[in-house]
């Protein structure tokens, strides 16, 4: 509301909001803090901070489970599947946004409905096919699965962005003598770039955190960080500091990406149903 709020009220709201914000963030903060403690300190309770900060957990985690390989796999799978998704989605979204036909709406809704198919409906055939062809734990086949998984979302996000570009401008470029290729590269692409970038970001995040197919279809060689963390699910002695270090390493890159793309999240995940 345009009305002036009193400073007292603002102060109270600030206190409440910050308290809730910190409570929500607490599990993450706690994990990060614990990752710098020694294992002994990690289980000593009221201890918010460590007696002696240490980086050794990160080293141990790298040594024990080869963090860098998993991280590399996460990068390959998340970025690779998203890029592949863009290759298929950009032309599709361009076509549906700028040359819609009678069937375009149905096509879009149908694409969305494929996203709603529960993974267990496809789990067994995919698993058996992967087993037969020895694709389990291979980068490319897993990447392709993740690509198909996120394709509807990529198309939808791009479509909503493209829809906001006035057709007039593309037509003007045609009048100005631009061919299809020039229209796409010189006019559409620069205007759509922010949209493409946030689509890219959001889908990298979703692919990075995908934890159904990656847990089933990868093991060691092509396994991403979701699987790496899952290997910490059975406790062995004092291991919280190491678990925390591993968790911190797994979430840090994507948390930062997420902070940058939070505004686009709404649009992408509601398929444009909430403006």
């Amino acid at each position, binding site marked *: 509301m345009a009305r002036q709020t009193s400073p007292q009220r603002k102060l109270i709201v600030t206190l409440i909001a910050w308290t809730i914000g910190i409570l929500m963030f607490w599990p993450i903060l706690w994990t990060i803090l614990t990752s710098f403690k020694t294992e002994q300190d990690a289980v000593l309770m009221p201890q918010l901070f460590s007696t002696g900060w240490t980086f050794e957990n990160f080293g141990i985690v790298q040594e024990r489970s080869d963090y860098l390989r998993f991280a590399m796999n996460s990068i390959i799978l998340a970025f690779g599947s998203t890029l592949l998704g863009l290759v298929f989605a950009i032309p599709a979204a361009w076509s549906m946004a700028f040359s819609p036909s009678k069937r375009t709406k149905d096509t879009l809704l149908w694409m969305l409905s494929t996203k709603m198919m529960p993974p267990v409906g496809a789990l067994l055939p995919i698993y058996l096919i992967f087993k037969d062809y020895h694709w389990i734990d291979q980068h490319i086949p897993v990447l392709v699965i993740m690509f198909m998984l996120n394709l509807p979302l990529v198309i939808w996000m791009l479509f909503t962005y493209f829809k906001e570009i006035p057709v007039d401008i593309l037509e003007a470029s045609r009048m*100005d*003598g631009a*061919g299809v290729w020039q229209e796409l590269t010189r006019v559409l692409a620069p205007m759509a770039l922010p949209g493409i970038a946030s689509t890219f970001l959001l889908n990298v995040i979703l692919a990075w955190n995908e934890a159904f197919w990656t847990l089933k279809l990868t093991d060691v060689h092509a396994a991403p960080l979701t699987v790496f963390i899952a290997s910490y699910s059975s406790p062995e002695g004092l291991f919280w500091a190491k678990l925390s270090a591993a968790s911190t390493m797994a979430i840090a890159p994507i948390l930062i990406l997420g902070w940058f793309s939070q505004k686009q999240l709404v649009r992408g995940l509601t398929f444009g149903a909430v403006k």
Partner: protein
Amino acid sequence: MSRIELKAVRKDFGNLGVINGVDLDILDGGFTVFVGPSGCGKSTLLRLIAGLEDLTSGQVLIDGRDVTELGPAQRELAMVFQSYALYPHMSVRNNIGFPLKMAKQPEDMIEAKVRKAAETLNLTAYLDRRPGQLSGGQRQRVAIGRAIVREPKAFLFDEPLSNLDAALRVQMRLEIMQLHKSLGATMVYVTHDQVEAMTMADRIVVLNQGRIEQVGSPLELYDHPKTLFVAGFIGSPKMNFISGSVAARYGAATIGIRPEHIQLGASDGGFTGTIRIAEHLGSDTFIHAESPELGSITVRATGNIEASPGTALALGFEASRVHRFDAQGVALK
């Protein structure tokens, strides 16, 4: 500078006929205006000429050459859109230079032409700005600049002034007319505003439901409308239409008389009426009256005259200015 011919042009969207057989000859170097109510197919017709839509049937010829199958890029026409359709990510300079760049002209030539166009349009100070940083009138000028640099065969305008405020609209109207004089180019201009059509055109094409009602100079349309539709569409305030026994007296199903052709206080051939409401414009007064013989009627009187509601009036028609129409709405001669 070119002549554009349309031959039996039809356009359907699905099974909706939007352009229903149009034959038209757009003269070289002329300023032709398509006018008609919203939704009558003006934009569609313009886009058919531009090549932005396919014809369902018929032909488009430019300088005698059949361009029906050519894409917009090959027709060498320029178009100014209602939304201006400027490229938001390019500077004014690059916007204006874009068509030349697409035509692969050398950089220095592009620069020279852009400068010249910018000078003509008073845009020199804004060449490095983005469209987002310009006012509506300036954007309009950039759109025109983009159209003139490549010396197209013809200019197409689709309601280019409808997003401007009234004062700016009048100014841009003059600028476009001046541009037409200085370039001597063929221009096709779409508007739903009959005042714009009357003031700007050499030739007006009145469209109604995808058909041409009449083609002619502004005065021809004003003086000799061929149909009821044209008679009602051209002129403001609208022509009065009267049917029934009064029309029968003139041997017509309907007669039309413009508000400016009714005399107040004339007693011969006279009708009577009562003033309902009067609009004072200073230079003119529009009187809306109720007449027992004529029904509701509008009279335009010159100057600021006394006219209070309820006052009785005597009304007379200028006999030579009465338009007669048959039951089909076609003018009788």
